[in-house]
């Protein structure tokens, strides 16, 4: 649906040229939600603006829906942009227009007759559940409502692609959830391809199918969200994953004296992650086995469960369990091997006294 081939963007200035985007290749499939995550200044804003040519790349090609935007005239490009909706962090609504007129705006631009506009705007306001706010001005709305107007406006001309530029970054967690829910909903209902940039891993975790991590203008890691989340390769990616999946060790455990090796009388602190890739053909992922009682019986260790939770990556569940394993050196080592072989992701934190 979207294809970026060797896209580059360099800002030329007297103080020195800034390579905001280095040869970037991305392919986004029809109907998927594709996330681009990066810290501020990583180049993600430039990247998403290259997709609808708000930023004209200094090199490479941009294809959307089979058309090469980089080869178009201004007029052709304006026409093509009607196929690409965009929503923004600060909503960018017209303050002088009512909710109704804001949603009508892209249709007016296209020269749609007034009665048709009214009908279409009505449908869109129903979709985002704001029909009763049609005559309000943006300054009378909450942040979440403003973003709903932004979404309705972006969808007005039935685009095939929706670009989301940090659409939830200015919203509180509750509102963020409801906006993400709405995006998921329209993604499914309209089979709309969505590309979103964000610096929030929670957002990616909530709705993305695939994700790319960008740093210093380079895509450093890319893959299915599940894979990137559960097996991050790069340091930056690991940092992002940590923001939503950090292990919290309770204060009663004395981590000051924690050692990396066994010492007599010590207990092993470990974090177990039970994954479900959704692929039933794959080998056991451990979630279906009585793992804890198995190691207790087989190796004679004691297991103390400190904390545990089940979370979701989009629709796929994964569980984490923070445990203390007590026993002699050999039985602990045997237990660890058993856990690994069972397909459970094991993270040894250390030995505490």
């Amino acid at each position, binding site marked *: 649906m979207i294809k970026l081939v060797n896209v580059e963007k360099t800002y030329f200035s007297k103080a020195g040229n800034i390579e905001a985007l280095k040869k970037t290749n991305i392919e986004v499939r029809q109907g998927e939600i594709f996330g681009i995550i990066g810290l501020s200044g990583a180049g993600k804003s430039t990247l998403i603006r290259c997709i609808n040519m708000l930023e004209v790349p200094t090199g490479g090609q941009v294809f959307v829906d089979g058309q090469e935007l980089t080869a178009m005239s201004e007029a052709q490009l304006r026409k093509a942009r*009607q196929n690409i909706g965009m929503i923004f962090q600060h909503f960018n609504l017209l303050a002088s227009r009512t909710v109704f007129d804001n949603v009508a705006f892209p249709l007016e*631009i*296209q020269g749609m007759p007034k009665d048709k506009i009214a009908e279409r705007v009505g449908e869109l306001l129903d979709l985002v559940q704001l029909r009763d706010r049609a005559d309000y*001005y943006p300054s009378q709305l909450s942040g979440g409502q403003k973003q709903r107007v932004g979404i309705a406006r972006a969808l007005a001309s039935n685009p095939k692609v929706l670009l989301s530029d940090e659409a939830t970054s200015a919203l509180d967690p509750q509102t963020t959830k409801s906006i993400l829910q709405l995006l998921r909903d329209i993604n499914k209902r309209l089979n709309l391809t969505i590309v979103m940039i964000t610096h929030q891993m929670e957002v990616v975790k909530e709705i993305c199918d695939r994700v790319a991590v960008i740093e210093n203008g380079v895509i450093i890691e890319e893959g299915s969200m599940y894979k990137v989340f559960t097996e991050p390769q790069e340091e930056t990616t690991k940092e992002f994953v940590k923001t939503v999946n950090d292990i919290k060790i309770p204060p009663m455990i004395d981590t000051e004296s924690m050692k990396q090796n066994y010492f007599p009388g010590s207990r092993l602190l470990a974090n177990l992650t039970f994954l479900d890739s959704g692929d039933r053909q794959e080998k056991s992922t451990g979630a279906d086995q009585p793992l804890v009682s198995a190691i207790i019986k087989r190796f004679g260790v004691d297991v103390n469960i400190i904390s545990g939770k089940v979370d979701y990556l989009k629709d796929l569940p994964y569980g984490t369990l923070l445990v203390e394993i007590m026993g002699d050196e050999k039985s602990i080592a045997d237990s660890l091997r058993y856990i690994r072989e069972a397909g459970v992701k094991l993270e040894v934190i250390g030995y505490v006294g």
Partner: protein
Amino acid sequence: MSDNMIDLLMKSLGETCYMVLIAIVLATLIGLPLGVILTVTRKDHIMPNSLVHNVLGAIVNATRSTPFIILMVAIIPLTRMIVGSSIGTTAAIVPLTITAAPFIARVIESSLLEVDRGVIEAAQSMGASPLQIIGKVMLPESLHSIVLGITLALIALIGASAMAGALGGGGLGDLAIRYGYQRFQMDVMIATVVVLIIMVQGVQTVGNMLSRKLNKNKLS
């Protein structure tokens, strides 16, 4: 003050209104497109063109830096060409328009620059053409601020019109000088000043009200 004087005062008030109102309309008609062009041709705006921007900017600055009394005399040939005479109330409209137009161009430029770039970007992302962005985004979004700018220009014009007496333009300022100052009629002087104060207050109040009505940023 005699009835005669009151008639004279009313006549002068009429002249001032006539000069100033026609001049502000004409100046806005000239200044609005100038202000728009000055804005959109900036190097980071929607139709960057530094040649047009710099040339227009220089003309605007040159006109604005010429004191009104000198401008008025300097363009007498132009005034004669347009109005057919260089003396009289109608003739004064020409220099008043020419002095106000660049001022209005600048206030409109600064109003248009206040429009959030994100909103313009959003319009671009929907496929709006530069003309649509100007007509449907920039002007409506800044209208409340433009109204305040034109109010400012109108008040400046009321002040400038007092000098129109030098060209036999009449008006309140002329009255104050000829009767109040040169004939030592203090009451005429005070009366004209009071009328001017009321006029300026009225213009500002109406301008503020209109701007507030148009501003949808601070609704509750």
